[in-house]
């Protein structure tokens, strides 16, 4: 590595070492798995956060601390647990999910749900009670009040979704275990994501190409963040 890593990376970019079909397919698998997992996590986490924030039930504090602990779940452990569940021997064995994108979605769902829940919970709890009372007094039903709460907490929830997406798309341990990092012999990814592709390159000591894929991943995360801020976060305050 005599010319310095930056120059090396620049040279690499020029002679682009990947088949575009291959690269596109792993980007597609990465985005598909992470987006579906994050959408499912959000659909579960936000109502759950509303429930925890605005109702009282026994075990609420225990549940909250379980969620907070969940943010620190090592992804490899999640991968192993999901593998156990979907393996031929496991409870979901008959569904034949091992080494499929569906299994990867399951494990990323498990990984993304705790941060999305915890950050959404903080965001909806911070919504002014007066605003919720106003929504109700103006004729809102319970559902309307919940929608107002979510709307008021939208910046916090967008942050939660981004945190969950960041965790999902940059995670390598569980998708490698349950997905198997498979590419068809036509050079199209079945279950290979950017992260497992990076892992594969690094395993073979090709750190420069691994770094290049890392740059693609970072660009992707930046793009998604920008998109969420632009379209999901609502209009900028005037």
């Amino acid at each position, binding site marked *: 590595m005599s010319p310095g890593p930056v120059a090396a990376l620049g040279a690499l970019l020029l002679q682009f070492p990947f088949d575009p079909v291959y690269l596109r397919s792993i980007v597609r698998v990465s985005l598909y798995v992470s987006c579906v997992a994050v959408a499912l996590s959000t659909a579960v986490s936000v109502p759950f956060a509303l429930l925890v924030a605005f109702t009282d039930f026994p075990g609420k504090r225990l549940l909250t601390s379980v969620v907070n602990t969940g943010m620190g779940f090592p992804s490899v452990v999640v991968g192993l647990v999901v593998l156990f569940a979907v393996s031929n021997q496991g409870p979901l064995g008959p569904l034949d999910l091992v080494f499929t994108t569906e299994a990867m979605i399951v494990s990323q769902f498990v990984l993304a749900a705790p941060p999305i829940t915890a950050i959404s919970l903080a965001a909806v709890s911070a919504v002014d009670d007066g*605003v919720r009372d106003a*929504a*109700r*007094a*103006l*004729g809102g039903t319970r559902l309307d009040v919940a929608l107002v709460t979510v*709307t008021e907490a939208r910046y916090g929830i967008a942050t939660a979704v981004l945190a969950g997406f960041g965790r999902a798309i940059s995670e390598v341990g569980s998708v490698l275990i349950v997905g198997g990092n498979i590419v068809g012999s036509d050079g199209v990814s079945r279950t290979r994501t950017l992260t497992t592709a990076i892992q594969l390159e690094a395993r073979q000591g090709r750190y420069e190409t691994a770094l290049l894929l890392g740059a693609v991943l970072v660009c992707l995360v930046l793009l998604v963040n920008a998109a969420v801020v632009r379209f999901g976060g609502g209009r900028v305050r005037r």
Partner: protein
Amino acid sequence: MILRTRGVSLAYGSESVLRDVSVGVDRGEVLAVIGPSGVGKTTLLGLLSLAVAPDRGTVELDGTDAWAAGESERLALRRRVGMVFQEASLFDASVARNVSYGLRVRRSWPERVRDGLRSLVGSPDAEAVDSAVREALDVVGLGDSLDRHAGSLSGGEARRVSFARALAYDPDVFLLDEPTSDLDPRNTAVVEDAVRRASQRGIGVVVASHDMHQAERVADRVAVMLDDGIAEVGPTERVFADPDDERTRKFVSGELVY
């Protein structure tokens, strides 16, 4: 009486706030509920707005006992009442969207989804704003502020928007909690004028206030709350000039200091 309580009692834990309170308001009438801070005016408005169930007694709108009615009927009753809280508590959105909220929740879901999608695509153009929204904002003198964001309003303007928000869906009864506390004289005048115009439209208005002078200015009748009940109800002039109740006399003359 369009809205009334009959012998309602309410306690927070062991502390009784209202005991056997019966009070009501007619269409087109302004009733002021006055009394010292902490006496239970806000609590009474909570009962009148059908948000809170009394421990005992009934709350009736147009002769229907709200808490004997089913969930959906109570929602329909609740939607005929406009409540303006002491804090503006505006939604983090434009003035137009704040004021149209009451109208939107009354629409059918397909309509609301269509409305939501349209607002995602482009900014809602001025023509799409309901005339009721413009009218309500005109009443509080903010007809030209449709597109401003709630966060950019002054305290007085925000309170006036929260007033318009409840006026927009044309309720039968209007409940105002300390509508002018912390407001400057100009904003106060706008709000008091709006109260009068609401009652002229046939709306029954209840104003809770610790300010006796405000009651004298806007109310047809006053209810004086002392301790955990209504000490005296009657025409404004009569109650202030010649109260029947001894404690009321002391309160309106400023002798009774709470």
